[in-house]
C-alpha cells in the first residue's frame, strides 16, 4: 500500500483481502503539524477534560418546570428528588434539557453551514480556495484544533460537516429515555455539543467568506472595514424596500446581485434584520441594517417593507400573519422554515410577482436562492406603488382612543417578559403625557405577548411604537461591517500583553436581544470596557444594538474606537456564525504566541486558554438555543460567559465556589507541584441580575493565574473601580486576587495594604511595604499553570526551561 500512496504502479493480482472503495480519492495530507491526541473527538473522548471543568465549576440547576413529559409514562413529577418512571432524577433531567437546548442550537448552526456549502459547491464548484490574505495563515483554528484538518478549499468542509452530523446523531440518541442518566455526563455531552457548535460556526463562516468575498485580510478588511447604516431612521421609505430576515445570506446575496446587474442600487432600498443583515453588509456595503432581532415584530408592523424575504432561524412564527396586516408579501427561501406557503420555485418569476403584488397569495416559497432576487425586487417595485397610500403608524386620534380603552388591569404586565408597566403608562398617556409609553419602546423585547392577553384588544405594540415614533424616525446609527477573522499579525502583537494581563481582557458581547432593560445596557458594557482599554469583540444582535447609541459628540462606539484587535478596540466580528473567530483568536494566542501545537489537540489548548487568556463572553440578551450552545462552546474552550437575568431560564449555570479551597488547585508544569490558587476565573457560566452587577463581574472573570504582577494590578484596578462605580463598595473578595504587594496598583498600594491588614488580618511589613502573610499563594513570575498532569515537563525539557 505504501507504493499506492506514493502513486506507484501495481497490478490487481498483487492484492489480497483488500477492499477498494471508489468514490472518493483521499489525498495524503501534507504534514503541516504533528497530529495531536484527539482529532475528531467522539462523545466521550474529552470527558476527562469536561469533568475537570465540572468538578471546579459545578453545574447549578434552576428547573423551569418540575415535570417531565418526554415519554408516555409521563408526566412525571420530579420535584425535590422524586424519580420519574424511567428512574431519572431532576438534576439529570435538567442536564438532559440543557443538552437538548444545545442540540437545537448546534443543529441550527451546522445545518445552516451544510446548506450553504451545498449551494456554494453547486454554484462555484468544489475548488473555491480558502485564502484570507497575507495576514491570516491560520485560517480555521477550530477546524485545525478539533478535526486535525487544514482546509484548503471549501470542499474540505464536507468531511467536517459529516463528522459533526454523526456526533449530533449520537448526542440526540443519548437524550432518549433509557440512555444517559448522570447529570455530569449530560453536561459533558452538552460541552461536546458546544464544541461542535463552535466548529459549525467556523465552518459556515469560512465557507461564506471564501465564496462571497467577505472581509478577511485582503484590502479593506480587518480594522479597515467600512461603516454601514443602522436603525429605523436610515431606511429611505420613498424607495421600494426589500427586507431580509434570518441568518442564511444566500438569498439576500442574490437580491443584491440582481440589483447590481440591473443597476437598481439607487432605486431599491435593501435592508435587513438580525444576522442576515450583518452578513449582507459584509457582501454589499450599501445594504442597511434596520435592527437586531428584538425589533422584528415592530419593524414588520411599522410597515417599512414592500417585500419580506425570510431565510432561516429567529424568524417569527407569525411572520406571514404580521406581514399580511401591513400588506407586505413574504418570500420564504429555506426548506427548514416554509411557513405553510406554496412552493413556487420553478414558476415564471413574473407570474409569482403578479400573485404577490395583487395579494392573491400572502407569500410564496422559492427554494433556489438564485431565483429569489428577481422576484423580490420586482415584487417590491410593484407593491411599493400600491402601498404608497397606506398609513400604518396610528394616527393621533386612534392613539388617543386606544389609550383611553385601557382599564389598568395589569394582565399585559403579567404577560410581559420584562414586566413592563404598560397600564400605568397608558393612564399617563390619557392625561397627555406620552413619555412613560415611549420609554417602553427600548426595554420592550417585541414579543407581542401583552396583546395576547389584553381583554380590550389594544394593539399595545403599535401604541408604544406610536408614542416613540418621533424618536424612532431619527434613529440613525453606524456599525462596522463584520470583519471576520482576527489576523495572525494582530495576535503576534497582543498575544503577550493578553497572557501577561497588561491588556486586561477580551470582552465579547454576543448574541440576542432579550435584554432585561433594553439595548442601552449592552452599549454600556462595550463602552466601559473599550474605554478601559480591554479589547471588545462583538457579534450578532449585540453588534447591531450597540450601534444605536451615541455619545455627547454624536458618535457611536464604532466611530469613536478603532477596529483593530488591540487595546481599546471595538470590533464587529460579524454575525453569530462569525463569533467562532473569537474562539479562534484565543486559540491563535496559544498557537501563534505560545507555539502550542493545534492539530487535534483540544484539551491542551483549552487548558492553556482557561489558565492564561483573560477573556469573557457576555450574552446579555441571550434568548435562543443557539446562544446556549454558543456559550457552552466557549466554556469547553476555557472561556467564561455571563448571561443576563433571562439567561437563568436556560436552567443551568456553571459556578465555582471560591470558599472551597480543594476546588482550586493547579499543577505547575515546571515540576508537577500542586498549587492552590485564587479563583481565576471564578465561574464559567452565570446569569447576573442587573448590568451594574455584571460589570464588575465581567472584570473579575478576566483574572487568570498566569497574570504578571503588572497585569494583575491593572485587572485589580478595574475590578475595584467598577465595583465602586456601580455598587458603591469594594468587592468583598478583591483580596483573593492579591498574591504580593506588587499586584496592587502603585497609586493605591498603601491604602490597599492597610485594608488588607485591617479587614483581612494580613501581616504587613510596613517598613518594606511588603505583605508578609495572607495571600492564597505568592507571586511567581515563572509559574506555568496547567490542569493536565501529562503536561508536566520531563527532566530534559525542564532544564531547557
Amino acid at each position, binding site marked *: 500500500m505504501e507504493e499506492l500512496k506514493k502513486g506507484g504502479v501495481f497490478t490487481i493480482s498483487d492484492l489480497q483481502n483488500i477492499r477498494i472503495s471508489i468514490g472518493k480519492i483521499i489525498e495524503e495530507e501534507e504534514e503541516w503539524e504533528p497530529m495531536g491526541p484527539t482529532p475528531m473527538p467522539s462523545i466521550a473522548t474529552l470527558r476527562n477534560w469536561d469533568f475537570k471543568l465540572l468538578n471546579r465549576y459545578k453545574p447549578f440547576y*434552576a428547573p*423551569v*418546570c418540575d415535570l417531565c413529559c418526554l415519554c408516555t409514562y409521563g408526566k412525571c*413529577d420530579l420535584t*425535590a428528588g422524586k424519580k420519574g418512571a424511567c428512574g431519572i432524577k431532576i438534576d439529570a433531567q435538567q442536564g438532559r434539557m440543557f443538552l437538548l437546548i444545545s442540540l437545537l442550537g448546534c443543529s441550527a448552526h451546522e445545518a445552516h453551514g451544510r446548506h450553504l456549502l451545498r449551494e456554494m459547491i453547486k454554484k462555484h464548484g468544489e475548488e473555491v480556495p480558502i485564502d484570507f490574505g497575507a495576514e491570516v495563515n491560520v485560517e480555521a483554528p477550530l477546524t485545525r484544533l478539533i478535526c486535525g484538518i487544514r482546509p484548503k478549499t471549501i470542499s474540505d468542509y464536507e468531511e467536517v460537516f459529516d463528522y459533526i452530523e454523526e456526533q449530533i446523531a449520537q448526542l440526540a440518541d443519548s437524550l432518549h429515555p433509557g440512555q444517559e442518566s448522570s447529570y455530569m455526563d449530560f453536561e459533558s455531552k452538552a460541552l461536546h455539543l458546544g464544541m461542535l457548535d463552535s466548529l459549525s460556526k467556523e465552518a459556515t463562516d469560512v465557507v461564506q467568506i471564501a465564496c462571497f468575498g467577505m472581509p478577511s485580510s485582503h484590502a479593506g478588511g480587518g480594522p479597515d472595514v467600512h461603516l454601514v447604516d443602522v436603525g429605523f431612521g436610515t431606511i429611505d421609505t420613498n424607495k421600494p424596500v426589500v427586507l431580509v430576515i434570518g441568518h442564511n445570506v444566500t438569498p439576500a446575496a442574490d437580491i443584491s446581485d440582481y440589483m447590481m446587474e440591473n443597476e437598481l442600487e439607487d432605486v431599491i432600498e435593501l435592508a435587513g434584520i438580525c444576522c442576515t443583515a450583518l452578513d449582507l453588509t459584509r457582501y454589499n456595503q450599501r445594504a442597511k441594517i434596520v435592527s437586531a432581532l428584538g425589533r422584528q415584530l415592530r419593524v414588520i408592523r411599522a410597515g417599512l417593507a414592500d417585500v419580506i424575504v425570510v431565510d432561516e432561524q429567529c424568524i417569527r412564527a407569525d411572520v406571514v400573519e404580521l406581514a399580511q396586516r401591513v400588506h407586505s408579501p413574504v418570500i420564504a427561501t429555506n426548506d427548514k422554515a416554509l411557513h405553510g406557503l406554496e412552493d413556487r420555485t420553478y414558476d415564471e418569476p413574473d407570474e409569482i410577482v403578479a400573485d404577490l403584488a395583487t395579494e392573491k397569495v400572502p407569500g410564496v416559497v422559492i427554494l433556489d436562492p438564485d431565483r429569489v432576487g428577481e422576484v423580490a425586487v420586482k415584487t417590491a417595485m410593484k407593491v411599493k406603488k400600491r402601498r404608497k397610500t397606506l398609513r400604518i403608524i396610528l394616527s393621533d386620534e386612534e392613539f388617543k382612543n386606544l389609550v383611553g380603552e385601557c382599564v389598568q388591569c395589569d394582565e399585559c404586565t403579567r404577560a410581559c417578559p420584562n*414586566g413592563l408597566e404598560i397600564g400605568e403608562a397608558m393612564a399617563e398617556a390619557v392625561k397627555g403625557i406620552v413619555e412613560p409609553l415611549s420609554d417602553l419602546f427600548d426595554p420592550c423585547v417585541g414579543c407581542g405577548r401583552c396583546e395576547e392577553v389584553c381583554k380590550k384588544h389594544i394593539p399595545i405594540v403599535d401604541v408604544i411604537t406610536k408614542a416613540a415614533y418621533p424618536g424612532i424616525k431619527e434613529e440613525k446609527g453606524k456599525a462596522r461591517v463584520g470583519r471576520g477573522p482576527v489576523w495572525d499579525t494582530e495576535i503576534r502583537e497582543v498575544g503577550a500583553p493578553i497572557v501577561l494581563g497588561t491588556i486586561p481582557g477580551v470582552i465579547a458581547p454576543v448574541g440576542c436581544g432579550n435584554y432585561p432593560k433594553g439595548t442601552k445596557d449592552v452599549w454600556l458594557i462595550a463602552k466601559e470596557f473599550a474605554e478601559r482599554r480591554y479589547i471588545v469583540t462583538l457579534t450578532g444582535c449585540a453588534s447591531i444594538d450597540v450601534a444605536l447609541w451615541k455619545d455627547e459628540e454624536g458618535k457611536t462606539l464604532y466611530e469613536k474606537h478603532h477596529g483593530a484587535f488591540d487595546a481599546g478596540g471595538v470590533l464587529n466580528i460579524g454575525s453569530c456564525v462569525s463569533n467562532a473567530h473569537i474562539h479562534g483568536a484565543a486559540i491563535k494566542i496559544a498557537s501563534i504566541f505560545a507555539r502550542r501545537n493545534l492539530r487535534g489537540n483540544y484539551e491542551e489548548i483549552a487548558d492553556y486558554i482557561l489558565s492564561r487568556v483573560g477573556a469573557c463572553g457576555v450574552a446579555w440578551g441571550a434568548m435562543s438555543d443557539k446562544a446556549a450552545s454558543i456559550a457552552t462552546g466557549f466554556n469547553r474552550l476555557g472561556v467564561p460567559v455571563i448571561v443576563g437575568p*433571562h439567561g437563568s431560564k436556560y436552567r443551568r449555570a456553571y459556578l465555582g*465556589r471560591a470558599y472551597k479551597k480543594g476546588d482550586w488547585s493547579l499543577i505547575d508544569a515546571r515540576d508537577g507541584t500542586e498549587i492552590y490558587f485564587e479563583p481565576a476565573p471564578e465561574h464559567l457560566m452565570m*446569569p447576573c441580575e442587573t448590568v451594574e452587577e455584571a460589570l464588575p463581574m465581567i472584570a473579575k472573570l478576566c483574572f487568570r493565574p498566569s497574570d504578571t504582577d503588572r497585569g494583575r494590578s491593572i485587572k485589580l484596578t478595574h475590578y475595584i473601580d467598577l465595583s465602586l462605580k456601580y455598587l458603591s463598595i469594594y468587592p468583598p473578595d478583591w483580596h483573593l486576587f492579591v498574591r504580593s504587594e506588587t499586584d496592587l496598583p502603585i497609586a493605591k498600594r498603601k491604602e490597599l495594604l492597610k485594608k488588607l491588614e485591617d479587614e483581612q488580618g494580613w501581616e504587613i511589613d510596613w517598613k518594606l511595604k511588603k505583605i508578609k502573610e495572607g495571600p492564597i499563594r505568592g507571586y511567581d513570575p515563572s509559574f506555568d499553570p496547567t490542569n493536565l498532569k501529562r503536561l508536566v515537563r520531563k527532566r530534559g525539557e525542564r532544564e531547557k526551561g
Partner: protein
Amino acid sequence: MVLKDAPWQIGNIPGPKQAKILTPLGAAKMIKRAKRPLFIVGSLALETELNGKSLMDYAIEIANGGRIPVVAVAHTPKGFSERGFQPDAYMPLINIIDRLRDADWKGVKGEGQHDLVVCLGVLYYIGSQGLSTLKHFAPWLKTITLCRFFHPNAYMSFPNMKDEEWRRYLDELIEELK
C-alpha cells in the same frame, strides 16, 4: 382581577408543589421561629417606592426588626450604603442561591447553614429560578417572599397585590417584628 395565588408571571407554572399564601403575621412568626434566617434584598428594592418611601427603607426596617442577616444582591449595596446600613454580605443572587444549596456551607456568619430565606425585591423571573433551585436542592430550607408578586416556587409567598395593600402588609410585618 388577578387571582391572589396565581403565578405573577402568567406562564410561570412550575409543577404540583407550589407556594402557599403568606400573611404578614405568618411571615413574622416564621422569621422569629427560625434559628438562622437570611434576608436577600434584590434590585427592585432600589426602584420601588410605596407612598414616597423606598423599598430599601422597608428592607432595612425588616432586617433590623427581625435581626436577620442581610445579603445584598444585584447593585443594592449602593442603596444600603446611601442609607448607612451595612449588609452582612454582598454577592450576586446566583451565588447566594448556590451557597444555600450547599449542605456544607456555614452561612453568612459562619454559624451554620441557614434554615429560612426571606426574599424582597429580587427581579421576578430570576428570583423564581433561584427559588426553584432551593425547592429542589435545599430540602433543609424554607423560603418566603415579601414582594407583591405571588411566587409559586417559594415555600410561602405574599399574594398578588396592588401597592396600597402591599404597603399595609409590609407595615404590619414590621410592626409584628418589633
